[in-house]
Every structure is written in C-alpha cells, then in structure tokens.
C-alpha cells in the first residue's frame, strides 16, 4: 500500500498535473449559468453547457475586478447589454486550481461578436417562427384610428422616456386633449417580458370599458442596455395578438426588436410616438378644416345659384305683374273709352234727334207759312175774282131791284131796275119780260 498523502499534498499533485498538462489558456464556448458581482468588484460566474435542456457540463468561473471593468464596458458597447445569465459567450480562460477553493476557471477575455451572432441567430429563429405562425403581419392589419384619443400606455412610470412622452402629449401647441392610461411594467431585465405580457393582459381586460384606440409600448431612453426582453417570443406573440393596434417606442438604435417587427407601427423614441399620435390629430383637423372650406365654398356656390334663381323668379313675377297691370289698365282704358263713346254716341243721337226736331220744326213752320201764304193768295184771288169792279171794268153791268141782285129777286112789269156800269148808275123800268137761255 502506497504511503498515504496529506490532502494538501494531493491538492499540490493535482495542481502540478494541471499545470504541466494544460495549456496556459483556452478559448471556450459556454453559457453563463449564473453571474454575481462581488463587493470587491470581482465577478463570480457559473458556466454551463446544455444539450436539449440537460446539463452536460458545469464549472465555476471568475473575472477579477481589474479585467472585469474593462471587459464589461467593451462588451456592453459591442452588444448593447451587460453580461448576464443565459448568455452564450466565447471566453479566453485559464484553468486554476486552488488548494482551498478548488477547481475554477479564470476568464481573461470575452469575444462579444460570438454573443452578438448567437443572439442574432436566436432572434432570426424567433422571427422565422412568428412568420410561420402569421404573427408578424397580424397587428398591422388594424387600420390606425384617425384620431387616437384614448391610449393604453405600457411603460415604467419612473422612466425618463415616459416623462418625455407625457410632456410631448400634454403640452402640444394645438391643445389637443389626449387621454392616456399607464399600465406600469418592468421594461428591462429578465422579468420584463413577463411583466409586459401581464400589462397587455390587464389592458385587454379593460378594453370593453375604456375603449382604447391604441396600445403604446415605450421604454425610457438612456443606455442601450438589456433589450433582449423585446426579442422574446412570448412577448412578441402577446403583442401580435392584441385587439388594439400597437405603436412601439422602444428606442433601439442598432436594429429593430422582434416586438417592433410585430407591432403595427414602430417609432424610434417615446417622443416620436407622442408626435405620431398628435400627427393623427393634426391630420384629422386639417382634413376637417379642408372639408369645412370645401363645404363653405359649395354652400356659397349653392347660395349664389339660389339667389340667382330667386332673382329670376322675382323678375318673372315682376314682369307678370306688370303685364297683368298693363292688361288691366288697358281693359280699364277700353271700358273708359267705351263709356265715353257710348256717352258721345248717346249725345250725338240726342243732338241728331234735336237737330232733326229743329229741322222738322223749321220745315213745318215754313210749310205752314207757305200753306198760309197759298191760302191767303187763293183767298185774295177769290176776293179779286169776286170784286164787282173787276167785271164792271170788263164792260159787264149789274142790275138790282130794290137793292137786291136781279137774279135773286122776282121781277115784274113796271119794277124799277138799277143798273151799274163801271162809271154809271142807270135807272130803268121793266117793260117786257121774255124768256132767255135756259
């Protein structure tokens, strides 16, 4: 039997064996199982290797303070995040054995490019899966509301980005009132995805009451640290499946996160999201104003047209009235003329009959006088004819017996006759009476 060694002797042997058989350093691929910062500024890690979720290797590791600070800041500037558990790394290590603390490896350097590649690979796998499941385009099918007035906001209440967002919204120069409600969530680190999913579920539960128009996911600006949570499959799925259009303002500078990809609209910063929302208001107001102007114009045109129509009708009415009045006046004039001519006719008739009467009176008077003259002439002729002087002057004589014309008296023998000639009165006595003539 070999002489027993003390524990320290054994540990020394192990250390010598390791020192002789191992290279001073190796590049190894491993996953950080756990990382804790010590008070002295060292980092204590547990590196693991998994095969289908089974642990196949595990070792303790450390990064001494002096290396750690520089390494960490180089890593952050290259990958945008700090070293943490779950990360796959390519590390330059050397194996150490300490008699008291045992076997461990000391990390001297980490190549961030490997981590970036790994992450990109994983991200691509997630994107491929989401694409296969039709989730990338799902939220983009929502038509953005014209005026997003009620916003459900997922953010960390203390984040500077959230403050920027609220300021931008509430101090807009147009004075638009935008209602928002904050659903607080943890926006970084390993618990962020689950916290944001919880907030989305809370919002979905409130949608029937609150009637949200838009779901906004914003993250406070600052350092580009730890954005892996936005490349999480479960979160991306939850965002894609919301009943609201999602607008993100997560603030990546390098490339889009998976959540950005599935969102309806991706903006760079919370301020940009606020501007985007306000732009909807402005755009709508401009359109409303445009329509108002258009309405005003067309109403103006219609009014003008109607005015013209009314004027035309007025003119027609006026002309109609004028025509009617003219006709009525003409009619009246006609009647007047009629009355006048009737009166004149009547007058004429009366005058004519008066003149007739006058004429006939004149005629009658003349006729009467003529008649009277004729009568007198005839009487005068009679008188002249019967005047005894007339026939005496012709040589005839007249004989009377005792003053009685002879032809009237009975004459006997011896009667004294008085005979008158024109110039003589002869007295004689009857001696013989003989019959004479008839």
């Amino acid at each position, binding site marked *: 039997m070999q002489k027993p060694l003390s524990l320290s002797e054994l540990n020394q042997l192990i250390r010598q064996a390791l020192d002789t058989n191992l290279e001073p350093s190796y590049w190894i691929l491993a996953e950080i199982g756990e990382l804790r910062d010590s008070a002295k500024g060292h980092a204590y890690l547990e590196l693991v290797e998994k095969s289908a979720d089974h642990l196949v290797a595990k070792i303790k590791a450390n990064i001494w303070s002096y290396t750690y600070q520089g390494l960490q800041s180089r890593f952050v500037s290259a990958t945008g995040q700090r070293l943490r558990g779950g990360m796959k790394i390519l590390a330059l290590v050397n194996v150490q054995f300490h008699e008291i603390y045992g076997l461990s490896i000391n990390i001297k350097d980490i190549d961030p490019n490997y981590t970036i590649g790994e992450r990109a690979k994983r991200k691509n796998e997630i994107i491929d899966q989401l694409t296969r499941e039709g989730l990338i385009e799902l939220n983009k099918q929502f038509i953005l509301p014209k005026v997003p007035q009620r916003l459900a906001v997922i953010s960390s209440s203390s984040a500077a980005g959230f403050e920027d967002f609220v300021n931008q919204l509430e101090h807009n120069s147009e004075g638009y009132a935008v209602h928002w409600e904050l659903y607080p969530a943890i926006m970084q680190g390993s618990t962020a995805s689950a916290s944001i999913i919880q907030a989305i579920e809370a919002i979905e539960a409130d949608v029937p009451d609150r009637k949200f128009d838009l779901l906004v996911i914003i993250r406070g600006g600052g350092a580009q640290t730890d954005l892996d949570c936005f490349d999480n499959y479960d979160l991306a799925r939850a965002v894609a499946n919301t009943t609201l259009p999602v607008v993100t303002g997560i603030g990546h500078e390098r490339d889009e996160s998976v959540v950005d990809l599935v969102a309806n609209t991706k903006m760079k910063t919370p301020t940009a999201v606020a501007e985007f929302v306000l732009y909807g208001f402005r755009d709508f107001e401009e359109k409303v104003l445009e329509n108002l102007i258009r309405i005003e114009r067309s109403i103006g045109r219609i009014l003008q047209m109607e005015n013209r129509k009314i004027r035309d009708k007025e003119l027609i009415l006026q002309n109609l009235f004028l025509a009617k009045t003219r006709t009525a006046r003409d009619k009246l004039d006609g009647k007047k003329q009629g009355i006048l001519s009737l009166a004149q006719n009547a007058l004429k008739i009366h005058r004519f009959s008066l003149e007739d009467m006058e004429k006939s009176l004149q005629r009658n008077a003349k006729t009467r006088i003529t008649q009277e003259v004729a009568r*007198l002439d005839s009487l005068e002729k009679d008188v002249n004819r019967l005047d005894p002087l007339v026939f005496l002057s012709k040589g005839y004589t007249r004989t009377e017996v005792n003053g009685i014309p002879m032809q009237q008296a009975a004459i006997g023998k011896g009667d004294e006759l008085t005979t008158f000639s024109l110039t003589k009165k002869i007295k004689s006595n009857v001696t013989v009476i003989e019959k004479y003539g008839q």
Partner: protein
Amino acid sequence: MDNSTTLTYDKALQRIEEIVSLLEEDTKSIDELAKLVKEASGLIKDCKLKLRTTEEDIHKAFGEDQQ
C-alpha cells in the same frame, strides 16, 4: 179796318172766308159788296204782313241757333 188790327190771324182768316162765301152768294148790294171786298183785301194784307213777320221771326230764331 179797325178790327183788322185787333183780330187774331185765325179770326181774320175766318172773316176772309166768310166774306168770300158772301161774295159768292151774291145777295148783297154792290155797295155792300164793295165794302166787303175792301175789308177782305185789308184783312188779307194784314195777314200777309203777319205771316212775313212770323217767317222772319222763325228765321231769326233758327238762324241764331245755327250760328
């Protein structure tokens, strides 16, 4: 002669006709006849004068009216 001026035209005319018929009857003496003729002639003259005056009056009346 006296009554010739006082007699109206109609009475004068009546008298003239009376005288004509007396003359035609021829029952009076020649002196009376001569007297009657004289009366009738006078009456006729008066009547003619009256008629002329009347005619002038009528002319005057209508003539003035027509002017």
